[in-house]
Structure formats: structure tokens, C-alpha cells
């Protein structure tokens, strides 16, 4: 074993506290160290994940008190899978923004990389923790770094987007805290496994109310329908790579928290229908809004919300196949959406108002970046032979198994809508006449950005041609999520007590 899951949180925090000191020694270190840390985290997470798949779930206790009393970290096939994706995407985002033009100034770069690293670490924390209050703390850390990153550029309307995000974020955090209070008052514990084991002792009425507050609390991170008003603005106003980090990392953590709560914590008949309804509303509203957007990043943001709605619909089927499809969608979205954000950020780098019409003709000036953007667009709208196709297909098969005609039609229509609005951009990129008035000079991408984009494109193509390479992992993860009993056993019965 190379390390313990606790290092996934402890090392980034240590590095974050260390970076101001290192910056005094050599200024370049503030840029390099976060990358090293994120690379280490990716390595650690991947190694642990392979361990977990081959043997058993790792339950790491903290401060020597086992599960119901202390805080524990659960590194299971599901959480390991998600944390590996997140740390990897964090590394890619770091690589992309390593020499990002506006970050060259020392003070700004220092803060930017601290926020980015803590954003990744706290999102991993949301996923691997086994304690609801600890999850709340990590959600707040994610939130504050996200607010700071959203307001990072002083020139734009970013403060406004960040303020909006902050108000919604703290309201939802309050709701989450109320849910925690209800659960703690009734069951006297904060541990997820203990709650899941004792949930039957709780009055159904209180269970439902606590669940509603939980959904409100996590909904902001997970971008579900009434609570996603912040998302388009934050994605638009934040620095380009940060939009990618939100879509690839933070939202995944939010979705995870939500499904963990639904599947494991609250064992009520019917939550799955709630998920389907929420997901469908989110999906329809977001995709129709994406159709009307005239700014590239805003369109991508709505598309991201829509994808999350689709993920929720797939989770809401509640079957093994549905969960599998949802995880596949999450994997694809975690890779493709950041790629779109990163390449899109290059495309519109020098435009003034970030409108789609301003990038006309970029396909000829920046062919490689544009090609990668097109690849991402095709993949996310689910065209074969790219990876997005397989995930949409698995959603369709899962729905077909359950005879959910409505969902099948919806998914097909949504795919059509997605194709329409992505082709609008592709059309602008390649097939519109070069117009001197609105066209701008291209921004020359750095080597680091190109490496990041190529790695992502390679992964998409690889998954597209060999989908069977990931389905095994996804299957294990899906089984892990479905098996509540196993989770409780793993966490609560460590065998011998390690209390002295």
C-alpha cells in the first residue's frame, strides 16, 4: 500500500499551508507544487483504487476512534472511481492553467493555485467522507474556494456571479445543517453507515422532511433545477479552466453526495421517482435554455446542467443498469465538458464580449483547438463512435429494460437538441465566411494547454473505440452503490476494535 485515503485530504492541506512559505523561497514553486501534489493525488488515488478493486473496501478511521464515534473515510469501488477521476481532472486543469496568461503575476498565481488545489481536495473529501457533518465542512470549503475562483478576475462582472453563487450556496448550506440537526436529534449519530443502519427507527414524516432539506442542501453543488441559477453566470465569469473544474469536479461531488443520500441514507420507497422528476425538469429547462444562449461558455454551462439532469434521471431508475449508465455518463461528462471548456476558452480568448458570433472563422486560424472542440461537441451529443455514444446507449438500454418510454423519447429528443446547438458553434467555426468586423486575433495556446487537451482527446477516443475498457470498473462501482448492506457492514464492523 502506498498510502492511506487520508493523505488525499491531508497532503493538499499541508501543501496549501506550505505554499506561502515556498513562495518566499522561489516564486515558481507556487505554480509547481500544486501540480506535484495533484499528480501525487492522482497516483495515490489510482493505486488505492486498484487495491480496492482487487481486495476490499478501505475504511480509514481518524483519530483512532472507529466508525460511529470518529470520522471515517470510505474508499470503496465507487468513491475510489470518482476520486480518481476528480484528482486526474484536477491535474489536467492545473496543467492547462500552468502558464495561463493572466496568472503570471506572482500573488494572483499563488492564490489561484491554492484555491484550485483545495477545490479538488475538498471535492474528493465530499466523496470519500463517511460522516454527514464532515461532508458539510467539505462542501463549505469547496464553496468558498469556488466563490473566490469565480471572482478571480477583477475586470469582469465576476463579483456579481460570485455573490449570487455565495447567497445560494450559504442558503443551501443552512438547509443542509437543518437536515443534519433533524437526523442527529432523532438518531444521535452523524455517521452515514450508522444512520443507514438505524434509519428505520426514525419517523417517516421526519425522514421525508430531512430528505427534502438534504436535497436543497446538496442541490446547489449538484446543479439541480431550482437551485442552479448560479451556474451559468459562475461558469461564464470564472476563468476558463475553472469552468472546466466546476463541471468536471465540483458537480460530480454534488451528484455523488445526492445519490449517496438517496440510495444509502434514506431508505424511503419513492425517492427514485423524485430523482427522475427533478432530473427531467432540470434536463428540459437546461437544454432549452442552452438553445437560446449567445455566449459560448453560457451555452456550455447550460449543457452541463442538462447532462447532470440526465445523470439524475439515470440514477433515478434505481436499477443496476441505470446506475451503471449514470456512472458512465458522469465519467464521460467529467472528461468531455472540461475539454470543451478548456478548448472553448482558447477559442474565445481574445474576444471582447465572449459571444459565439465572435469566434467566426476560428476553425481556419486555430485548426487543432477547433478540431478538439468539435470532437468534444460530437462526443457529448452522443454521436458514434465517440465515448458519449456508449453512455447514452446505456441510458437507453437501461430505460428500455424498465419500459420507460417517456425517458427514451426524452433522451432522443435531448440528443437532437444538443446536436443542434453544438452544430451552431461548429458551423460558426468552420463554415462561416471570415468576417473582418467581428473576427479577432487568435490566442496562441501554450504547450501545456495543448498537452492537456490532447490527453483528454486521447481518452475520449480510447473510450469511444474500446468502451469495454471501463465498463468493468463502472459495473463494480454501480454494484457498490446499490449494496447498502455491504456499505454498513464495511464501515461499522471493522472486526477488532482499534480503541486501546
Amino acid at each position: 500500500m502506498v498510502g492511506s485515503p487520508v493523505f488525499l485530504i491531508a497532503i493538499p492541506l499541508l501543501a496549501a499551508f506550505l505554499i506561502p512559505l515556498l513562495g518566499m523561497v522561489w516564486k515558481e514553486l507556487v505554480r509547481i507544487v500544486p501540480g506535484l501534489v495533484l499528480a501525487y493525488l492522482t497516483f495515490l488515488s489510482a493505486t488505492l483504487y486498484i487495491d480496492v478493486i482487487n481486495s476490499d473496501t478501505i475504511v480509514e478511521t481518524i483519530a483512532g476512534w472507529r466508525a460511529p464515534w470518529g470520522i471515517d473515510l470510505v474508499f470503496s469501488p465507487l468513491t475510489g472511481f470518482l476520486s480518481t477521476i476528480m484528482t486526474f481532472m484536477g491535474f489536467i486543469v492545473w496543467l492547462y492553467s500552468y502558464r495561463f496568461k493572466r496568472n503570471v503575476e506572482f500573488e494572483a498565481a499563488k492564490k489561484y493555485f491554492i484555491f484550485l488545489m483545495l477545490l479538488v481536495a475538498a471535492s474528493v473529501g465530499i466523496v470519500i467522507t463517511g460522516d454527514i457533518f464532515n461532508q458539510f465542512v467539505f462542501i463549505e470549503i469547496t464553496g468558498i474556494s469556488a466563490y473566490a475562483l469565480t471572482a478571480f478576475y477583477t475586470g469582469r462582472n465576476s463579483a456579481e456571479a460570485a455573490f449570487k453563487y455565495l447567497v445560494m450556496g450559504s442558503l443551501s448550506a443552512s438547509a443542509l445543517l437543518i437536515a443534519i440537526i433533524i437526523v442527529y436529534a432523532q438518531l444521535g449519530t452523524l455517521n452515514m453507515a450508522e444512520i443507514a443502519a438505524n434509519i428505520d427507527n426514525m419517523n417517516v414524516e421526519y425522514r421525508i422532511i430531512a430528505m427534502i432539506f438534504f436535497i436543497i442542501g446538496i442541490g446547489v453543488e449538484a446543479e439541480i433545477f431550482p437551485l442552479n441559477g448560479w451556474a451559468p453566470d459562475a461558469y461564464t465569469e470564472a476563468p476558463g479552466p475553472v469552468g472546466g473544474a466546476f463541471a468536471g469536479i465540483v458537480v460530480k461531488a454534488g451528484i455523488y453526495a445526492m445519490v449517496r443520500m438517496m440510495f444509502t441514507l434514506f431508505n424511503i420507497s419513492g425517492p427514485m421517482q423524485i430523482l427522475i422528476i427533478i432530473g427531467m425538469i432540470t434536463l428540459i429547462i437546461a437544454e432549452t435554455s442552452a438553445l437560446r444562449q449567445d455566449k459560448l461558455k453560457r451555452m456550455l454551462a447550460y449543457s452541463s446542467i442538462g447532462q447532470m439532469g440526465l445523470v439524475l434521471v439515470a440514477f433515478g431508475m434505481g436499477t443496476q443498469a441505470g446506475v451503471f449508465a449514470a456512472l458512465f455518463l458522469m465519467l464521460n461528462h467529467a472528461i468531455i465538458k472540461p475539454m470543451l471548456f478548456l478548448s472553448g476558452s482558447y477559442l474565445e480568448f481574445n474576444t471582447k464580449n465572449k459571444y459565439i458570433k465572435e469566434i467566426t472563422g476560428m476553425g481556419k486560424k486555430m485548426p487543432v483547438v477547433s478540431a478538439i472542440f468539435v470532437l468534444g461537441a460530437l462526443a457529448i451529443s452522443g454521436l458514434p463512435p465517440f465515448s458519449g455514444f456508449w453512455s447514452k446507449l446505456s441510458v437507453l438500454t437501461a430505460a428500455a429494460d424498465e419500459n420507460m418510454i417517456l425517458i427514451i423519447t426524452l433522451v432522443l429528443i435531448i440528443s437532437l437538441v444538443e446536436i443542434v446547438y453544438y452544430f451552431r458553434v461548429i458551423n460558426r467555426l468552420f463554415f462561416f465566411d471570415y468576417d473582418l468586423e467581428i473576427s479577432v486575433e487568435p490566442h496562441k495556446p501554450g504547450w501545456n494547454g495543448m498537452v492537456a487537451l490532447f490527453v483528454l482527446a486521447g481518452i475520449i477516443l480510447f473510450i469511444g473505440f474500446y468502451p469495454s475498457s471501463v465498463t468493468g470498473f463502472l459495473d463494480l462501482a454501480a454494484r457498490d452503490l446499490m449494496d447498502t448492506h455491504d456499505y454498513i457492514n464495511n464501515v461499522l464492523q471493522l472486526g477488532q476494535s482499534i480503541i486501546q
Partner: protein
Amino acid sequence: MKKAIVILMLAVFGYFLAITFLDPQFEAERNRDGVKKFYLDKTVSELKTANTVTAIVVNFRGFDTLGEVTVLFLAATALGSILFKKRHHIGDRTVLLPASAIVGSGAKLIFPAITLLGVYVFVHGHLTPGGGFQGGTIIATGFLLMLIAYRDFSISHNILSVIESLAGIGFVTFGLLGFMNGGTFLQNFLGTGVLNDLLSGGVIPIIYILVGFKVAAELTGLIYTVLHEKG
């Protein structure tokens, strides 16, 4: 119109809260003991920490505290980042008129006392109410008093950030030392002493003192940043 919708929403929301918390059932059905008894017992028998809340904050749920310290660290950093200006100069505060001699000498008189009080609060965190956060806040407020009373009182941002970093590193290092010695992060690996002694509780007082230094440095930096910001 909008207000009516809001009030309707609030009514629904309040109804949900009321049927939960004001219901006598809520009290009757709850599981009173839960983890509480275990904490109270173990605090005395194993950790030898008089203040159970401190034991929970630093040891049982020490991971939360690590996150909490990170939140403050992030808030201080975010404040610097959000209020960042292109030409970054910490200009003079536009003090229109200096504080009177009474406030000045009073501040001078009371500042060491406040600092001492803060130190007392976080050193005795495991015996009496209070601890790192409270003590750190008190010290930071003392610095604020000096900043208000004297226009030329200044604190080096570098020293603050060094203290902050060292304290944070110390916290995580103690956690990792626990990992090396006992097998789990933040585990207590020192002798626990006798209940109600100053030197009891193993690593708990040490960690709380580190937290105190960190919080004091962070909040002082935060106040300093906001105070020198002229809108």
C-alpha cells in the same frame, strides 16, 4: 406581489420546520444517548481532557477542525484575492483625525492584557471553555484595537503569513505523526497526564495552541486587508 409569493414560501417552509421541531413526538421518539455517552466517558477515562467539547473538536472530530481552519485560511486568502487591485499598494488609511490620547494610551495599556487573555484562553482550551478559535479571535481583536488607535501601527504581512503557515503545517504534521505512531490520522500519541492538569490531554492542547496561533494570524491579516481597503 413578489412579497406575497415570498411570504407564502416562508409559510410553507415554516410549516415544515414547525411540524418537525415543535411536535412533542420529536422529543419523545429521539434517541437521547447516541454517541454522547461514549464521548463523555472516553474523554475522562482515556483522553483526560476536562472539556468534552474541546476533546470532540480536536480529537474525535478533529478532521472537521482541520477543515474549519482551512475555511478560515481560504477566507483570508480569498479576501486578499477579491480585493486585489492592479497596482497593489497598501496605502495609508485615510485617518481623518487621530485617536485621542486617552484611547491611545488605553489601547496601549489594554493590548498586552488582551493578548495575554487570548493566550490564556487557548492554552487552557482543554480545561475551561474556549480554545484556539476563541483565543485567536481575541488576539486578532486586540490587534484591531491597536490599528484603530494608532494610524502608523502596522503589522508585517510576511510575518503573519509565516506564522499562519507554520501553525497550519504543525497541525497537519501532528496529524501525520499520529498516523506514524498510532496508525490513524490525528491520533493521540502522547501521554495523557492527569485530569484537570495543565499538561493533560496528550496532543489536544498542542493542537489547540497551534490553531490559536493560526487563527490569530489569519484574522489579523483579514482585518488588516479590509481596513486598508478604501472603497
